[in-house]
């Protein structure tokens, strides 16, 4: 047991650095994919066929590509076009691009839970598409969107570990460093698991809070 705690205390800085980058990657990609995913979701329910087609193509293309390939594309292929970006921003963009497709689908399915008559009545009052979406449809869709959205974000938190394969020092990169230092792998992996569990707790709490806040009166 002493040995188990020693693994953590002897390598504290590495754990702190790794998980700090994990949290940073997560937060940047969470905000990015919420914005991009909402825009894509709006496209998919818009009355303009070209926008709907664009949204559908994006989702089908990105959702069916392994995340590792999205990373590889951004980290290796894009710099070949003389665009110089660092590993960390590349990883953040890759996660954002990938997760947006899933956020888009959560938004679209949430919108579909709202009765068509709601949007129709709003249009009949003279509301624009943006007003119909933001004032009438999305507020009623939020409640249905919370659980699947949280699943998307928990999956994304775990997906940050793929960045380790692309030279980003995040939690997923810790085992390789620890192996070099000759630390026992089992203890290291257990600590990383505990780290992720701790990071997921606030997400679960947020889900509870939002579900309660947006409980619909029926």
């Amino acid at each position, binding site marked *: 047991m002493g040995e188990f705690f020693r693994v953590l205390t002897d390598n504290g800085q590495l754990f702190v650095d790794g998980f700090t980058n994990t949290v940073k990657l997560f937060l940047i990609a969470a905000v990015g994919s919420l914005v991009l995913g909402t825009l894509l979701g709006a496209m998919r329910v818009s009355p303009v066929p070209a926008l709907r087609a664009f949204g559908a193509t994006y989702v089908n293309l990105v959702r069916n590509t392994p995340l590792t390939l999205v990373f590889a594309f951004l980290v290796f292929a894009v710099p070949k076009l003389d665009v110089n970006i660092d590993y960390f921003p590349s990883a953040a963009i890759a996660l954002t691009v990938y997760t947006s497709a899933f956020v888009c689908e959560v938004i679209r399915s949430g919108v579909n839970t709202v*009765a068509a*008559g*709601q949007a*129709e*009545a*709003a*249009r*009949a*009052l*003279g*509301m*624009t598409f943006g*007003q119909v979406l933001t*004032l*009438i449809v999305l*507020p*009623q869709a939020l409640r249905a969107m919370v659980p699947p959205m949280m699943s998307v974000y928990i999956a994304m938190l775990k997906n940050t570990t793929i960045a380790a394969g692309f030279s980003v020092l995040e939690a997923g990169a810790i085992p390789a460093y620890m192996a070099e230092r000759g630390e026992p792998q089992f203890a290291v992996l257990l600590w990383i698991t505990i780290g992720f569990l701790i990071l997921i707790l606030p997400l679960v709490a947020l889900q509870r809070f939002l579900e309660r806040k947006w409980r*619909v*009166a*029926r």
Partner: protein
Amino acid sequence: MTTGEPLIVLDAVNKWFGPLHVLDDVSLSVGRGEVVVVIGPSGSGKSTLCRAINRLEPINSGTITFDGQPLPAEGKALARLRSEVGMVFQSFNLFAHKTILENVTLGPVKVRREKPAAARERGLALLDRVGIANQADKFPAQLSGGQQQRAAIARALAMQPKAMLFDEPTSALDPEMVGEVLDVMTSLARDGMTMVVVTHEMGFARHAANRVIFMADGKLVEDASPAEFFANPRSERAKDFLSKILTH
């Protein structure tokens, strides 16, 4: 009753849903202050006609003019037109996440950019007019069907529309609540509102309408005063239809 140029004019309007010809060369004009009741068998195109007037349903050919202007195809101009035409649906469609008063003030504040205080004052007056002022702070699901439909009428009136469209406003109501909604509509008609009303309430058609339109298979088959239509329907379709609904 009717003064000056008509408010709503449909000229040779055609509409298809795939192979189905739902509006077949429909021409109709509705004068200012006129109340037109639309009747006809199920699937004859009554709802589609009603929804074409504020372009919730686009048409394939012909023209529709509202207040002297052809209906705009899209964008801000279409939104403005819709704000001038009130619409009441069979299933009420009150905004489920807003209180009754918010339902009534949302359009004026967000679409017309009115001051919230002014919109609130007029909203409360309208709720009072339709007899549900005491329900202002409740959510739609807490009201009876009749109260919800009266709230929906108040919501449409809050935009100070030039015309009101009703698509079977009492069909989803329990029988004991039909009267309270028809009373509100009758008083609107008496106050000179231009109305197009799809309904099976023959009492309302007889007493409040200036004209009755009978539709069948997407065609406008008859267009007559209520007295004339009910006493002497000219077409077989109308005679057949009336015999079915008037016997019970």
